């Protein structure tokens, strides 16, 4: 049963939806620039092209780690997304503490980027990987504090199914004051988790030429791109489950679910296109200062029941 969820929902469905999400990202970016933008199949064509190219392993790289890092990130994001789908489709199917498992699995893509960067032996990739490490240290704290809000509001439950069930009937957490603050903090945190502007410090294309993925080519690069596309679907999906009551597949609910997801994606893309890249110390100061304080305020408010 779990294998079916992993293959059908975790790998295939999330892959397809992630590719569509990345097309929406590129198209909205293009429309903001007053451009036409790429055709619908462009992300798929990019991945097929990269799979057909030669895979170069640089001299001096640690070969096994270099080639296994993308697979590790891809596998963990698939498992995380399979757990989310499992809870979404049948609220009783989760296990105790699955929210903690999902939080851990969602950090592994960043760790895989770091491992790949350090293993490639390129100095610029090392700079990128150390930046990724600092960024991870900074955004995880407010992200976990913000996730505590739905846990407290659903009566201290560590099951995703319980969180979904207590939001049933339009009683979503984002409508309360503390939930709204936590949602805003988590949107900024997933921006950093996905490594897109303003927090693409680890892959700054204009200063360290792609950073952690500078030495990747061919199939490993394609897996990294697919992993990023899947993160573009999975992380907003996680936030929708936590704060917006998940998806609903009955009747007109489908349209409403799609609207919820696309709206969240477009908010992320608009933040991406209207902000410059921040420096690593600015990012750290922002996450440990205002973002952490806002999430602590949200926790206190949610304990008070506001």
């Amino acid at each position, binding site marked *: 049963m779990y294998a079916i969820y992993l293959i059908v929902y975790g790998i295939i469905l999330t892959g397809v939806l992630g590719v569509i999400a990345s097309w929406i990202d590129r198209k909205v970016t293009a429309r903001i620039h007053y*451009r036409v933008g790429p*055709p619908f199949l462009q992300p798929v064509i990019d991945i*097929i092209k990269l799979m057909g190219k030669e895979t170069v392993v640089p001299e001096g790289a640690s070969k096994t780690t270099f080639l296994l890092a993308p697979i590790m990130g891809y596998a963990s994001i698939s498992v995380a997304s399979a757990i989310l789908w499992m809870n979404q489709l049948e609220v009783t199917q989760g296990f105790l503490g699955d929210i903690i498992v999902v939080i851990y699995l969602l950090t592994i893509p960043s760790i895989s980027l770091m491992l790949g960067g350090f293993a490639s032996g390129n100095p610029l990739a090392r700079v990128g990987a150390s930046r990724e490490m600092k960024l991870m240290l900074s955004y995880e704290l407010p992200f976990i504090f913000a996730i505590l809000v739905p846990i407290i509001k659903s009566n201290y439950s560590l099951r995703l199914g319980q969180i979904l069930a207590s939001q049933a009937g339009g009683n979503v957490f984002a409508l309360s004051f503390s939930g709204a603050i936590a949602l805003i903090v988590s949107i900024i945190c997933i921006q950093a988790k996905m490594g897109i502007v303003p927090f693409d410090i680890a892959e700054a294309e204009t200063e360290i030429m792609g950073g952690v993925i500078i030495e990747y080519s061919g199939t490993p690069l394609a897996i990294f791109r697919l992993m990023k596309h899947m993160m573009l679907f999975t992380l907003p999906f996680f936030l929708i489950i936590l704060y917006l009551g998940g998806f609903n597949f009955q009747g007109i609910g489908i349209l409403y679910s799609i609207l919820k997801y696309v709206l969240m994606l477009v908010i992320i893309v608009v933040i991406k296109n209207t902000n410059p890249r921040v420096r690593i110390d600015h990012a750290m100061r922002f996450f440990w200062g205002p973002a952490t304080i806002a999430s602590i305020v949200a926790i206190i408010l949610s304990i008070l029941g506001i």
Partner: protein
Amino acid sequence: MAKLGIKTRALLKSPWVFHVATGSCNNCDIEILDVLTPRFDVERFGILLAPSIRHADVLLITGAGSRKSMERVMRLYEMAPKPCLVVCIGECAMSRGIFMPSYNMPKPIDHYLPVDAYIPGCPPKPEAIIAGIVKLIEKKKGGK
């Protein structure tokens, strides 16, 4: 028209370009940057600027190819993962232009690398660069 493999078709639909300057006067480089601006919008054809040589499918070479820089360019070409096309942009990259008698520009670029397309002009207009890339794609589609 010859039947193309899925690899070549995907390559022609998403060529990521990498920009190599071999001692040029910067005019051709500015025109390449113009092509990549929102006004011309080459992302319609899947063309993106690759940050690193390992992601590149097309090398855009400008400049006359000076003695010192050609060593590096040949190394770059060896570093690129292999179905990789080379496009020479500008008069200098084609025939060295006014630098023909220079002691420092011994040979034109196509003596070093297999060049797939030449785009003349000093510098070529952005429209000319796009036309050149379209001709290159047509040539590759024609089954060479």
